[in-house]
């Protein structure tokens, strides 16, 4: 009886806890893509992120431009553009890009909750930079509801 109760509780816990779906990294996102155009475009975004991480924003921007020339509906590219804008202290431009990315994720990769949550957190960060704390908090909570921060970490 106790075993059954334990199993039931575990199953219940698994069902009720939000789980993150979707690629953990850009590399994974590229690998999971069946479309060559999207795959190449995401790999360029991966390179752009690497360039951004080492502070080479110019190369990063050039790589995103290449990515979008190949696939103008690549949500990862817009997220990356938003990150660049945040890095360059332009939270408003960042927000437009994050929203664009979010819109594309919702429609093109609706099951990708991991990235949907990430974009929400990035949007929250942009709002924080604009001093809009309440909006930022709402977005963070929304992100937690979709995929808890521990599960959506990574780039």
């Amino acid at each position: 009886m106790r075993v059954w109760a334990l199993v039931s509780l575990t199953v219940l816990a698994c069902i009720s806890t939000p789980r993150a779906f979707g690629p953990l990294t850009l590399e994974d996102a590229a690998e999971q893509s069946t479309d060559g155009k999207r795959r190449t475009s995401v790999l360029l975004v991966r390179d752009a992120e690497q360039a951004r991480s080492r502070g080479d924003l110019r190369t990063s921007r050039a790589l995103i431009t290449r990515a979008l020339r190949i696939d103008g509906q690549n949500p990862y590219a817009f997220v990356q553009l938003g990150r660049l804008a945040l890095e360059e202290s332009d939270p408003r431009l960042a927000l437009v890009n994050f929203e664009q990315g979010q819109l594309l994720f919702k429609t093109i990769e609706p099951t990708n909750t991991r990235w949907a949550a990430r974009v929400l957190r990035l949007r929250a960060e942009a709002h924080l930079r604009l001093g809009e704390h309440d909006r930022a908090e709402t977005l963070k909570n929304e992100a937690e509801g979709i995929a808890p921060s521990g599960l959506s970490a990574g780039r």
Partner: protein
Amino acid sequence: MRVKAAKIIVPAVVIALILAAWAIVWVRAQDTFVEARFQGRLFSIPSAVYSVPFELYPGLDVAAAALQTRLSRLNYHPGEVESLSPGEYVWQEQEIQLGLRAFRYPQGQTGSRHVVLSLNPAGRVASIRDGEGRSLDSVMLEPERVGAFHDQDRQDRRIISIENVPELLITAVLAVEDRRFYDHSGIDFRRIAGAFLANLRAGRVVQGGSTLTQQLVKNFYLTSERTFVRKLREAVMSLLLEWRHSKPEILEAYLNEVYMGQRTAVAIHGMGEAARYYFAKEISDLSLGEIGLLAGMIKGPNLYSPKLHPERAITRRNLVLKLLHDEGWVSDELLAEASNEKLGVRAFLPDDNPAPYFFDFLRGDLVAEYGEEILASEGLSVFTTLDAHAQVIARDAVRNGLARLEADFPKLKRESSPLQGAMIVLAPRTGEILAMVGGRRYGQSQFNRAVQMRRQPGSIFKPVVALAALARSDDPNRRFTLATILQDEPLLVPGPTGDWVPTNYDDEFRGSVRLRDAIELSLNVPVARLGIAVGPEKIVATARRMGFVSPLRPLPSLALGSFEVALLEVARAYAVIATGGTVPLVRSYQEVMDDAGNVLEQKQIAFKRAFAPEEVFLVTSLLQGVVDRGTGRGLRDRGVTGPIAGKTGTTNGFRDAWFVAFTPQLLVAVWVGFDDEGSLGVPGSVAALPIVADFLHKYHVDTSAVFVQPSGLEWVAIDAATGLRGGAGCRGELEIFLEGTVPVESCSGSPTRPLDRLFDWLMRGT
């Protein structure tokens, strides 16, 4: 006697001293003159303008992407697998081997390399490998040089460094121009004596005595006049140059200065530019035959031009090769091989600058940033957004479309002020201008109708009215949906300058029509009524948010496009719809790099959110309907498939014909009309739409991308006659609404029932 001698000697000495002093001053002056130019920037270097590089990646459809055409435009030639050189390719059924050229991108120099594209049976790139078999994610085909900004001298020059010049080219140049270059000090007296004797024997000038240094001085500092003073200055300046500078410095300057021929009105100077112009190669990639030809051409660049006189050029080349062979620089085998080499000259492109109007537009942007002088002299590299392949298709689509119109409607054919057209192709997601056609023939008219001309937009403006109407409003009297019923009945609007009486294109009235039908069929009267109901001020505000900058007056006739705007404004406004409500920063260039490889400027992809995505999606849906059922269905009739939206436009008296179409990735806007505003007699669907269709066909627009439907929208079955929800006995058709704006009332007279909701859900599923 002494006194007498003193009387002669003293003045002579004084005169000699004066002459010596004058000579010193004069030589000093020459030295200053020589150094003033030689120390600074030696040459004015035009700024080069490049197209967008073409991306090769797995999944690319090589036929649809017109890879072969793109390679031809870049002057790639068929080669051999075993000896593939940069600028060559081998095209096989399942594989394409490419010898990519070296290129200096703003992100760094790439070397020339061998890549292999494996193709799958569908003709798509399956994988990309380098020469060593390593897998590559993607590679860029170098951009095409589409033009340059020159100063008034109109010289094309590519500066090369002496370290990068092949040793054999230097040897060949010295062998034919100045054998004792490393032995003399600027003047070669043995050579002068030899030339004097040879000319004396021949009775005419058959040999020159000038050293390479003298040639440089003459070309660089002096004129070609044949006077003693000029010759004296040349000799002195040559000695000074040799005294001040090393042999390699002088040789480098010479190799960059030497005149190498003519490309229409532009002079080709220097070996770097000659290598690019004649062979589309970097100087380091030249073959032995090409080296021989370039060295031989110095004597008479036009006389021995491989483009103008190929036979003569081969004879001259082989003479130089034999010289190299005789002096032991080239083996028997190499001589035989190079002497039989084809000239390998870059094919004549009928129009080296496919985008003259774009070029003018770009110049405007760049001059504002850098100034005319810097553009013409500092050797900048401008990386534009232009897709050279798209540009050629756009240019031809406009030319062919206008010619076809003239053939179909002979009254449109005029000798003076002929029928004109303009086209803009945009990538709405990045704001990049991919192609721009400002008129039919740049040679006949440089007026850029895509940018400089303002004309009435007519019905092409109706989506602005629709967006103003469909956007959420706090005013309950100004809430419209695509199912809102409008009255298509006679309308008279009194105004200060007279009554305004709009009519439909067919002079018919249809009674009650849905907003969707009014736009899809481009009905003027119901849209005029809608404009009045929405309010002209709101329409002006909406137009401004969409990026219209031309003067707009809040008059009732505004809804029918009664003011004047530019094609570029129209394209940008439609890009707002294509991107789901963001105004893109429209750009003609991406990066500017100086001649040392430093990036001076990089434009970023930037947007401004102007409208909620769901509000804009209603307009996208509307414009998809225009193409599927309405005035733009000619696009479907011409075989254009996939998700596409568009709108026709025709102004009063058929003075202007417009058509704008967009997919999620690409936007094409076309105008057709006369400069003097004469009547076309045909609407936009006849004059402008076929041009867009032609472009879309030939450019092989990607039809896999879909318009992204945002959240906050719902599809509901609507009764077409009443605009009410479908119900029992009046099922209707699906319509899209902003959440919360769906009609509550059902056409069956009863409120919405669960069964109706189930019906909506089922219809959506289809």
